[in-house]
């Protein structure tokens, strides 16, 4: 090529080629650098390797909602049962108040995430059993009401002794919190599991368990951070939850489905694996250690709690982000095996992509 022509070469093109040689692809729409295959629609490439599924359009508030909801659901249960069974009135009261606060924050987060927050009430327009989002909205509303009721009961108690209203509110409040706390603390696992997003529906069985136990652990952890570091009961619950998480983590690692790639690779993979450690083995170790020392017990319990909370947050953010990555995979929904057959810009290679499968 003559000088005049080479001086023509736009620097932009060289950048594109560099990017291509570095990353194998170029992000800009449709751009393919020389040596890479022609954009194609074929049984091997799908439609120009354009992903079929739409990405989740949730704001970062949603994973946070998952965390808060999971925690306050579990707190509701703890708060309703703890002092019935044992003499843990303060702990139970604290749990109930936290649950009430949590459910309120949950509602705020959920509303804030809506495209049209003013229309939040439309959530209660119908009740749709087959829609997890609908069920969840009702559960959230119900739980908030019952939590509020039991909190109100507590306040009344401090004013008048044995007021019948307080008794009534306490009874229905705690019953409600126990009953609705169960779905409320883990329905979000069902929510994302029962969607078209491959990485999620591949784990549709384990996600509710994982999210639930994660909620329980953060509930325990929050109580501990609020000072309840003496309760062995809490420590025991924490151990159970952490054990569950550890098992789930191992399960996930053992499953080799390609749908799960986002849980093992990239930023999302890192988040989820970190979550596994922070809410599994690490808290277990710390909690066990706390049993054999009285001096450091408090610190160790607080460390375990902190690790559990951060783990739970990583888990929620990790899984939601994984959904976005998974939605971008154009092969899975089309059952197209990897890797992409096309390798070079060579005419024959391009041809092989266009030839019909017999």
């Amino acid at each position, binding site marked *: *090529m*003559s000088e*005049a*022509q080479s*001086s*023509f*070469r*736009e620097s*932009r*093109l060289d950048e*594109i080629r560099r990017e291509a040689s570095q990353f194998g692809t170029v992000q800009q729409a*449709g*751009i*393919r*650098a*020389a*040596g*890479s295959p*022609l*954009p194609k629609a074929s049984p091997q490439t799908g439609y120009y390797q354009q992903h079929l599924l739409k990405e989740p359009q949730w704001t970062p508030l949603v994973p946070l909602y998952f965390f808060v909801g999971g925690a306050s659901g579990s707190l509701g249960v703890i708060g309703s049962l703890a002092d019935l069974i044992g003499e843990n009135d303060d702990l139970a009261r604290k749990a109930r108040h936290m649950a009430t606060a949590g459910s309120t924050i949950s509602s705020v987060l959920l509303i804030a995430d809506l495209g049209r927050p003013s229309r939040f009430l439309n959530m209660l327009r119908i009740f749709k059993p087959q829609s997890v989002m609908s069920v969840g909205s009702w559960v959230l509303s119900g739980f908030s009401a019952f939590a509020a009721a039991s909190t109100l009961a507590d306040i009344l108690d401090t004013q008048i002794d044995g007021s019948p209203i307080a008794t009534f509110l306490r009874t229905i409040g705690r019953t409600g919190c126990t009953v609705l706390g169960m779905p409320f603390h883990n329905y979000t696992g069902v929510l994302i599991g029962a969607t078209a997003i491959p990485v999620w529906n591949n784990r549709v069985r384990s996600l509710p368990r994982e999210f639930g136990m994660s909620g329980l652990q953060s509930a325990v952890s929050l109580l501990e951070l609020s000072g309840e570091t003496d309760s062995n009961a809490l420590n025991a619950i924490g151990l159970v939850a952490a054990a569950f998480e550890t098992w789930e983590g191992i399960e996930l690692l053992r499953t080799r489905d390609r749908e799960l790639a986002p849980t093992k690779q990239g930023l999302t993979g890192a988040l989820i694996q970190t979550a596994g450690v922070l809410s599994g083995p690490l808290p277990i170790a710390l909690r066990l250690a706390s049993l054999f020392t009285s001096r450091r017990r408090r610190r160790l319990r607080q460390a375990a709690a902190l690790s559990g909370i951060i783990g739970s947050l990583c888990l929620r953010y990790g899984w939601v982000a994984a959904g976005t990555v998974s939605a971008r995979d154009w092969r899975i929904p089309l059952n197209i095996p990897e890797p992409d057959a096309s390798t070079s*810009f060579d*005419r024959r290679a*391009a041809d092989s992509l*266009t030839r019909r499968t017999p």
Partner: protein
Amino acid sequence: MPGLGTSVGRGGATTAQQSLADSDAILIMGSSMAEQHPVGYQWVVEARERGCKVIHVDPRFTRTSATADIWVPLRAGSDIVFLGGLIHYVLENEKWFKEYVLHYTNASTILRDDYVDAEDAGGLFSGWDAEKKKYDPETWLYKGSEPKKENGQSLPGHHDAGGGHAKDRGGEAGNTTEFETDDTLQHPRCIFQVLKRHFARYTPEMVERSCGVPQDVFLRVAETYAAASGRSKTGCICYAVGWTQHSTGVQIIRAAAILQLLLGNFGRPGGGILALRGHASIQGSTDIPTLYDILPGYMPMPFFDADSKTFEQYIKQHSTEAGLWTKFEDFMVSFLKAWYGDAATKENQWGFNFLPRVTGDHSELGYWLDMKDGKLEGLFVMGQNPAVGAPNGRLQRKAMANLKWLVVRDLVEIETSTFWKDSPEIERGELRTEDIATEVFLMPAAGPAEKSGSFTNTQRLLQWHNKAVEPPGDARSELWFVYHLGRMFKGRAARERTPKNDALNALTWELPTEGAVAEPSAEAVLAEINGRDLTTGKLLSTFEDLKRDGTTMSGCWIYTGVKPAENRNVANERSAHDALGHGWGFAWPKDTRIIYNRASAAPDGTPWSEEKKFVWWDEEKREWTGKDITDFKKDMPPDHKRDLSKGGLEALDGDKPFGMHPDGRGWLYVNSGLKDGPLPTHFEPLESPVENPLYPQHQSNPPSDKKQRPDNPYASTPHDSRFPFVLTTYRLTEHHTAGGMSRSLSHLSELQPELFAEISLELAELTGVSPNDYVTIVTPRALISARALVTPRMTPLIIQGHQIHQVGLPYHWGWKGIVTGDVANDLLAISQDPNVRIMETKGLVCNLIPGRHPAGHKALDELHELLEERP
């Protein structure tokens, strides 16, 4: 016009789009009908689903190819070789429709002894004047017919200034009613034999060599199409500017007409030639021409010094002794009465001298070069965007800077109106805004739904559109603009009654107006176009009633009948009662949907077959009847013998369907009227990468005009090492011409947002371009950048042994609108074919290099560098 006009008598499409559904084979060539006329294409698809074979011949694999049965890649500019090949095949293999050819064409007519065919003279016909680069057609005439020589002027139809639109007949040069025939077709000088010899070398081998079409593919096309012929089968040919925009455009269409005549396809359902027009009323704007060389109804403008001395002389020159043009004087007098009313009297030759005389090439490209040379003062542009749409855009835009004033009327601020402000020439420093003295008026125009009026569509059908709402703000219709401007001039002329203003003072200019803005009544204009009987004041229902004694008037004789009564506007009638749509609009002439339909019956007047029964002679009623208005004298029996004394159609035999011709026949051979010869002959485009394999002595069409000058340079041809590739330009479905009606609309712009060049994978590899890269395309005129659309749909062709790469380039983009891009037409040269002065856009040469051209003045430096380069 001349391609079809000289062959069969009228320049318009001979059939209706709906009739395509009755075809047994459809040949689409020089058009991507599915892309440019999608809704018309439904009839092709319908035919296809009924088993009709659809053949698409095109350099690119387009959306039309993608829905056709056979696609044939063809080197842009080799069309005549391909069609000549088909003609050769039909003649050699006896596939021609004998009865039709014998009775309905001039195959049996014998030529003069001194006629020399291009085949025998290396590409030139007899009568060539090397000095003037033009033909004297005298030797082309039929044996026995008298040349119309007047005081040493060139023969009618061959005037230098001619623009070729007044060619709805041909044969003006001689008295074509006197000639000899040989019905055995054996006479060596009879047209049939001449034709055979002329196309003898257009063999499948030659087609392969020149067009790059493999022989077996060519033969499959030939067999398939030739089969759509005879009593019970018909085939139709669809073309568009893919044929016309060549230096041999007219002759390409001639070749198609010859093929259709040989196969007996004119005037029959599912047959004929469908010229596909690209603008809503492009047919209308030649019927009622905003063109320099004709008057409404294809009557020629008087040429200075040639035939314009006296009215008698003018009439004598342009009327014939038989056929419809014997009524030329009736049409012309009625026309002059329409324009000049009472001021047109027998004494003043019906105001003939009010008409301006044509003194030269006043066509767009002709006067644009004058504009560039500072010879023009003012310009009106209405609904056109030459800054983007016209060839050699740089010259076009620079020329406008030499105007004193410019009036642009459009819906949006188009590039033409802002050349002084933001054109590439300003950006590159070739022009400086402050240096440009041109005054510019940009006037808002009314949209089609904001005014009433008629469009004439591609099948000669006038359809009325009704005003629905008022135009916004100061937007007005062109009707309003011209009418009120006219009133001002009339006023001024009335005050200064000088000879100069005679025409203005004589001009009839009274129209009823309506509404707050005083919008003139379009229907009143239509009434004037239709014509009246001045004695009774009644509107006329057929041009047959027009008279030469000044008792009738008609603004456009072929439209007479569109408004037959005060309370009727046939163009606005909307109750179709048959497939061809009778009852819906008005098709000229006389609401005939398929013209020359006398040919749909055998010479004896009976239908050729049940399948193709269309128009036939009813013996009881003694008249022609059938599914269409007969394009013939209704009560003239098939066995009628011509009576020259009567004139008109009665001066023709009863078995001669082509009534515009003085012999009533379809012309395989055109004895005069075409400036580049009586028969189609292949010449290479003005810029071509290959030698002319048929006539090495004459690379390109001898009489064509390159307008070569420093600001309109050409590549050396053949083989210019700087420009190794073939370039062809075209349109996309998603945009409209120069973009004024599409690039400003979001819903269309998003569908095709950027200028791109379609290239093959091979060319991409050759030039080191990868998909979506920017590339720069270079011709001697300009360089532009586009995105590369690398696609297997483009394929290199093997021409005379070596690979020819083609670059496809849509031309819709400019620098204004929602989506912008370089102007593809900057690459083209201003050239003129000999007959209609159209430029060549479909076949030229270019270079393609990776990367985007630099901005500003650097771009021009790059261009010059590249032009000097000789590896």
